[in-house]
């Protein structure tokens, strides 16, 4: 008899564990009554032998933690439906912005301090992983706490309106036309700068001693090559204006990014990009550390820019293809303005 009572007590203690002390006492008494009545019923109906009735009753009740969760008003979830969507959005945004930024900064620091070796790949991966885990952990902890805080009406004061619907980027012809004009203007500026830095100062400015920025030797191949790329970028911009971001457009965009980034990085690393006089003019004002860091920052900027541009293209193509897969009929926008 002593043994069986102990079993019920252990069950009640285990089930009351998650409850506050004040609620726990009432809950324990209720649960004891329920178990005793169940045991009596089992013995009376003959469904359990008197010796086994307590064990059977507790087995039927199941895991005490789950039983307690059923009694509690709060369902056993970390973040309830009230905050789930916000939690997910915040988590996605912070992970996607902070993790690449931290890993990129770490990698850049490794390059600048000159500590890059085969192990850098592994440590960068580690930094990436730990940053991601830290952000996920603390974001979730904060939201779990918010979810458990007493519900206030203030959080719901900002009522939803159809105006809050996210815009469909790049869908309207007007928006695409703005994008086309901006890109073409930017390309024209680049061409202008490349030509002007070579011929401008001496021809129009009459300033003797002005030096070109880029090595004039590059005119034999690389500068014309980059000017051809500018032309291809212009074709690309028109293509995107006409048909939007498609998968082929995103792929061509990546190829173009590589065609820009790889030769320019190679030219920087081999020191062939800048005109000899220009570099000396520059280096006179820089100490040894700055001379070492500058090319690294330049290369990092090119890598980051090319990566960002490639990702933007792929993301746009992905959104577009997902949108097309919905097969919306009514909201179709005329292709030509």
């Amino acid at each position, binding site marked *: 008899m002593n043994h069986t009572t102990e079993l019920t007590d252990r069950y009640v203690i285990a089930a009351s564990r998650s409850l506050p002390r004040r609620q726990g006492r009432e809950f324990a008494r209720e649960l004891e*009554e329920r178990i*005793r009545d169940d045991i009596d019923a089992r013995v009376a109906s003959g469904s359990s032998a008197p010796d086994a009735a307590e064990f059977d009753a507790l087995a039927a009740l199941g895991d005490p933690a789950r039983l307690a969760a*059923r*009694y509690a008003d709060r369902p056993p979830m970390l973040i309830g439906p009230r905050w789930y969507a916000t939690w997910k959005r915040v988590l996605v945004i912070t992970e996607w912005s902070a993790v690449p930024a931290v890993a990129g900064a770490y990698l850049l620091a490794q390059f600048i301090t000159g500590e890059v070796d085969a192990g850098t790949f592994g440590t960068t991966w580690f930094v990436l992983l730990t940053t991601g885990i830290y952000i996920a952990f603390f974001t979730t902890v904060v939201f779990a706490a918010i979810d458990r805080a007493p519900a206030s009406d203030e959080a719901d004061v900002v009522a939803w309106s159809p105006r809050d619907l996210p815009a469909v980027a790049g869908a309207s012809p007007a928006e695409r036309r703005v994008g086309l004009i901006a890109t073409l203007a930017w390309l024209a500026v680049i061409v202008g700068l490349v030509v002007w830095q070579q011929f401008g100062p001496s021809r129009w400015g009459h300033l003797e001693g002005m030096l070109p920025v880029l090595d004039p030797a590059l005119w034999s191949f690389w500068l014309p090559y980059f000017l051809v790329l500018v032309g291809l970028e212009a074709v690309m911009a028109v293509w995107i204006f006409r048909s939007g971001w498609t998968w082929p457009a995103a792929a061509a965009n990546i190829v173009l990014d590589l065609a820009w980034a790889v030769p320019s990085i190679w030219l920087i690393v081999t020191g062939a990009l800048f005109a000899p006089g220009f570099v000396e003019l520059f280096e006179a004002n820089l100490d040894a550390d700055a001379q070492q860091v500058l090319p690294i920052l330049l290369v990092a900027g090119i890598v980051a820019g090319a990566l960002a541009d490639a990702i933007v293209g792929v993301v746009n193509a992905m959104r577009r293809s997902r949108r097309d897969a919905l097969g919306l009929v009514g909201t179709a926008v005329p292709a030509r303005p």
Partner: protein
Amino acid sequence: MNLDETTAGHLQELRRGTVVLACLVRLRTPDYGYALLESLNTLGILVDANTLYPLLRRLEKQGLLTSEWNTDEARPRKFYRTSPTGELLADALMTDWRRIDDALAGLTTGDES
């Protein structure tokens, strides 16, 4: 999820509210958990202990039931009774139940004709 599970899930949803109504009506005369469970199931209002006990606790917390520990007998038992608020809710629920029943009846006879 097979058909039996789907059926069981929908039946459970359909019955959930009716168990509340049945408790509020039945507990106009005070009773304790196990006796209530037995009497409801005998009446044909099918409910299992895992649903009923937490439900009683919730209804009490919402002020729809009042409770009192009866220690007259060898074993203490918690007796629940429908509160005045509970009575009002029971009336409202019962009215709605009848309205839904009529509406469904209208729907099925409309189908047959």
